[in-house]
């Protein structure tokens, strides 16, 4: 499945011309306030576009019904705010519900929920209440919910912001696994661009440039200069046998 944004202009005037394809990871980077979240929300239809149009497999996005859209995108917000208690297993299993009709029932709901909780490694949380989880646990539950929806794309809005280094690694691992095993497409906003070193060469980086455009590059084409330009600070890649690290070049201020 291919989602194409052509001639797009988001509410905060980011010009968007790019496409997302399933089976690939799309890392969305850009500095604070550059409009990453607005872009992501515009693509899934939570916010309108000023200009341009979005097509899903050459079909106009606006002509799709709610249910068709729900098979296309699942959205994972930056903060999964819940203030009332609800068991985690129920929260995850409801990811599959795509209608307000109380008589529309879902088959094998319980079994699917179990499998997905297992895949995400959170079976032990199943009976806990959602409003009592830690930030890291909540991020995993939120991802599990999105997987339950079984859409072609999963759109993640900077969910790794509150995770420690190890959890972040686990979380990325989980994303990679879902892409490679289920052939889903993923778009993920992150402030940790070193995530790209875990990706395959033909995965995609969508960078929001300081000029307010979206630049699409394959991971293999991303250079130190490009990232430095996007973030506005000098960056370098440090390669070793253990992998690649990203570092900010610092100097003593005179």
């Amino acid at each position, binding site marked *: 499945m291919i989602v194409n944004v052509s001639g797009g202009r988001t509410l905060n005037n980011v010009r968007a011309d790019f496409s997302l394809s399933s089976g690939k990871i799309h890392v969305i980077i850009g500095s604070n306030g550059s409009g990453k979240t607005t872009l992501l*929300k515009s693509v899934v*239809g939570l916010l309108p576009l000023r200009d341009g149009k979005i097509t899903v497999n050459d079909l106009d996005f606006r002509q799709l019904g709610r*249910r068709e859209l729900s098979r296309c995108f699942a959205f994972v917000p930056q903060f999964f705010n819940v203030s*009332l208690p609800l068991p985690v297993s129920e*929260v995850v299993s*409801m990811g599959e519900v795509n209608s*307000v009709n*109380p008589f529309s029932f879902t088959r094998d709901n319980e079994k699917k929920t179990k499998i997905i909780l297992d895949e995400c490694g959170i079976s032990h949380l199943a009976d806990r209440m959602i409003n009592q989880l830690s930030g890291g646990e909540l991020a995993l539950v939120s991802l599990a919910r999105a997987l339950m929806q079984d859409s072609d794309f999963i*759109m993640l809005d900077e969910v790794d912001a509150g995770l420690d280094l190890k959890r972040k690694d686990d979380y990325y691992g989980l994303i990679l696994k879902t892409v490679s095993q289920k052939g889903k497409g993923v778009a993920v906003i992150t402030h940790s661009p070193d995530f790209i070193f875990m990706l395959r060469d033909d995965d995609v980086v969508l960078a929001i440039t300081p000029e307010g455009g979206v630049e699409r590059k394959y991971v293999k084409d991303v250079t130190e200069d490009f990232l430095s330009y996007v973030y506005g600070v000098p960056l370098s890649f440090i390669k070793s046998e253990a992998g690649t690290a990203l570092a900010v070049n610092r100097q003593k201020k005179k």
Partner: protein
Amino acid sequence: MYKYVFLTIIFFLLFFLSINFGGSDLSLAEALSNEEYAEVFWDIRLPRVLNAVLAGCLLAVSGVAFQAVFQNPLVSPDLLGASSGAALGTLLLLMCGVSGLWLPLGALAVGGCVTLICVTVAWLINRRGRFNQLILILTGILISSLIVSFINILHYFMPDEGTLLGATGFLMGSLNGLGYRDLMIQGTFGGPALVLMYIFARKLNLLVLPSEVLEVQGINTRALFIFILILASVASCSTVAVAGIIGWVSLIIPNFARMWAGGDHRTLLPLSAVMGSNFMLAADLLSRTVTDVEIPIGILIGIIGAPMFLVIMVRNIRWEA
């Protein structure tokens, strides 16, 4: 499961006590042995108790629904002006000299209208965006306080003592003198709302989640919000229309039920319905028997309710580390 059994036993116990004791010092055995007394029992005490059961049920369930819609455990159906609207309606009708069946029906209509106005105004304010609960809450508070001012004006200029007495009784909330007619009003409007709410229990679970997630998931959140709000408002209005403003029940009971049984609405709804009935029966029993003169149940519940609410609040506060 044992929770249901426990609550049901308590329910029957309270029900029995309620029909056994009353203002007229008449026990069940006495009442049924004498024909004259039996009339008092069948026409006054029994309908009153049945009304209390239904009222507690409706108030608690509509509280659960409101808290789910607003994703806030400290919200109650009074918020959107259902109670104050119904009170205003009753006052106006009383002043016009209306009585009988039209009084509760009128109250129901005005209460419903006020709720509708709240939702419409909030909807007009943010037509473009998603449904915003905060704006709805603020609109509700504003319109409620506006109506309370109107009520006070009417109260101030109330022409004669008789109407004043009726109005005061309504504002304090009382189950005194409720008959089968009131039971029917509560039943015909509240009953279907109750059943529908239970059918939609799983959808109420959805409302607890962030709305932007639901939108992308294919749920028409706005329609669901409004549908549940209407159901809950009808349920609470139908009680307010016959029994006046009885606060706290819809705020406290859902919270206690949630502490006890968790937040899954498929268990929360029936559990809080029974708990609401139990609470109402107990409060009504107390209001009739503690003192020689009957205390209006609204006042009694206020006295019990405020400290209970404090307990909930303290338990709900999460201390920041």
